[in-house]
């Protein structure tokens, strides 16, 4: 009896959160999927909304913008975060430095988006500075507009917000890394790149993968930042979906759901590919042979 209790204990502890995850994600996506596959008036099964979606250039433009924005901001954040952590992790042992890194984490994404506007928009601080230096005479001459079709402002916002996130994810790995590995590799004849490649990267890889996936999934589907910094066309996928969802009649609702379903499918596909690869590496190590 005691043994049985021991054995089901972890499941009992996990039951509430797993239930929450399944109810929210399972129920939510299932309902959205069903709605995207049914005619909005008759309720009949149909794939017409997906067909319309895939032939609609508006959707493709949004998809491309979302995908490139998410990929770029994720890649830059991860690389920058990694470089900063690699060279400065000794400093972050001290609490005041760690607190500093926490600061952007305490700023909501929408406020961060506003900060980017404040600094980099056409009427922003940088623009005023350029005017002072005499490089521009009119606000309209400002060359670094961030509210553009490439989503520059969105990317900048995410980088400012996510680099600290990456640092906080990577710090524990660096603290746990045995610093004598460096002596082993260097005395065997390897330089610092070799130290990174052989000792640090294998330990970092799982966390880097996880962090990358979290950031990508978040940025491709987040609403708040592009709502402030986006342009009317092309819209990021979630904004496109939101717009169709609230259009006058309900005829675009299934299409709005379909947009989110495609986004969901894309992120999950990428996540499983990335996790799968990283898991295979880990299995290889722990199998022993």
């Amino acid at each position, binding site marked *: 009896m005691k043994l049985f209790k021991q054995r089901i204990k972890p499941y009992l502890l996990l039951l509430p959160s797993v239930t929450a995850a399944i109810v929210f994600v399972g129920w939510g996506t299932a309902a959205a999927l069903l709605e995207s596959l049914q005619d909005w008036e008759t309720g009949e099964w149909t794939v017409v909304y997906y067909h319309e979606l895939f032939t609609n250039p508006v959707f493709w433009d949004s998809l491309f913008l979302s995908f490139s924005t998410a990929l770029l901001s994720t890649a830059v954040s991860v690389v920058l975060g990694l470089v900063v952590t690699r060279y400065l992790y000794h400093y972050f042992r001290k609490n005041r430095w760690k607190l500093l890194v926490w600061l952007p984490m305490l700023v909501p994404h929408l406020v961060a988006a506003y900060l980017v506007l404040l600094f980099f928009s056409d009427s922003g601080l940088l623009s005023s500075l350029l005017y002072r230096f005499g490089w521009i005479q009119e606000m309209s001459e400002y060359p670094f507009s961030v509210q553009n079709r490439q989503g520059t402002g969105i990317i900048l916002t995410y980088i400012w917000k996510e680099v600290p996130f990456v640092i906080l994810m990577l710090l524990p790995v660096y603290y746990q890394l*045995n610093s*004598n*590995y*460096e*002596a*082993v590799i*260097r*005395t*065997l*004849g*390897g*330089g610092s790149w*070799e130290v990174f490649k*052989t*000792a640090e990267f*294998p330990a970092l890889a799982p966390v880097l993968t996880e962090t990358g996936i979290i950031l990508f999934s978040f940025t491709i589907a987040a609403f708040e930042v592009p709502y402030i910094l986006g342009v009317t066309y092309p819209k990021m996928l979630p904004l496109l979906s939101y717009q169709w969802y609230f259009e006058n009649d309900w005829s675009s609702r299934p299409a709005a759901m379909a947009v989110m379903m495609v986004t969901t499918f894309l992120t999950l596909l990428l996540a499983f590919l990335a996790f799968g690869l990283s898991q295979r*590496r880990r299995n*290889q*190590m*722990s*199998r*022993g*042979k």
Partner: protein
Amino acid sequence: METAMLSCQHLQVHISHHVILHRINLAVQHSEIVCVVGPSGCGKTTLLRAIAGMVPVSAGQVLLEGVNITRTKPERRPVVMMHQEALLFPHMTVIENITYGLKLQKIPKKERERQGMQMLNRVEMADYENVYPHALSGGQQQRVAFARALITKPKLILFDEPFSSLDPLLRRSLGMWMKGMLKEEGMTALFVTHDKEEAMMLSDRVAVMVEGAIHQIGPPLDVYQRPLSVETAVFFSEGMLLDNRFFITNDAFTITADSSTLKEKKLVFKGHIAGKWLRSGQLFYHIVLDTESQELILPGEATFSTGDKVFIEAPEQAVVDLEEIR
């Protein structure tokens, strides 16, 4: 005279304004095994790291076969370092780990594997070629790490407490095995340990290091029996220190039960047995002295019980005057 393999001259290391190494002079001859022994925190690991090039040297120099390598990058020095943990790369197989240094030297794969297999045979691990490190025992891991170091044919191997994470029995047998390998290969080695028995077993000469300075270098038994300073006496030798100046090593003492047999020209101390045990077939007594507030561990032939009053005696000529020697 032949140039020494390793020669540290007036080596000094500071770490953020603290003097860690204080004018170290140390020479290791070709094919010699030297053990630096000292209490933890005495700077012995820093000495190894300075020789390997992992910490900047603030004064003095390191010569390898007469060549000044003080400013050479660690990866360019023909010196390898081993640690308490084996630090095998978890994502590489045993053979990949062993041939890692050869790969860095850009030696072709075929040749690497040939040398790797040869080395695996040498360290008696031939069956483990494609095994990942986590499946190996602690001793096996340390042997693979040893092979990984040896295969690059370094001029000098540095060992930082390589056995201290192993259990005591394995520690001794692996130590003797490694010493045998080093001697067969004619390898020069510098060990660092806080375990003086290990130091005596492994080394041709020991160097006693206390608070960043080397106090005495010599064959282990000499250093044990003729300590030249209080620090060496207290840390490396075993015996009784009197007035912080006179020293009697344990092997001069005998334990007796009654004072009637006491002869002249002998020093006698009163004490009682606090505990006893057997080790390697020999009885040992833990004796607490009444006067000197010292404790001694001595082997004894006669059988005493815990709590017995005893006398311990030593011939007068066994007393070493540490100050006079200095």
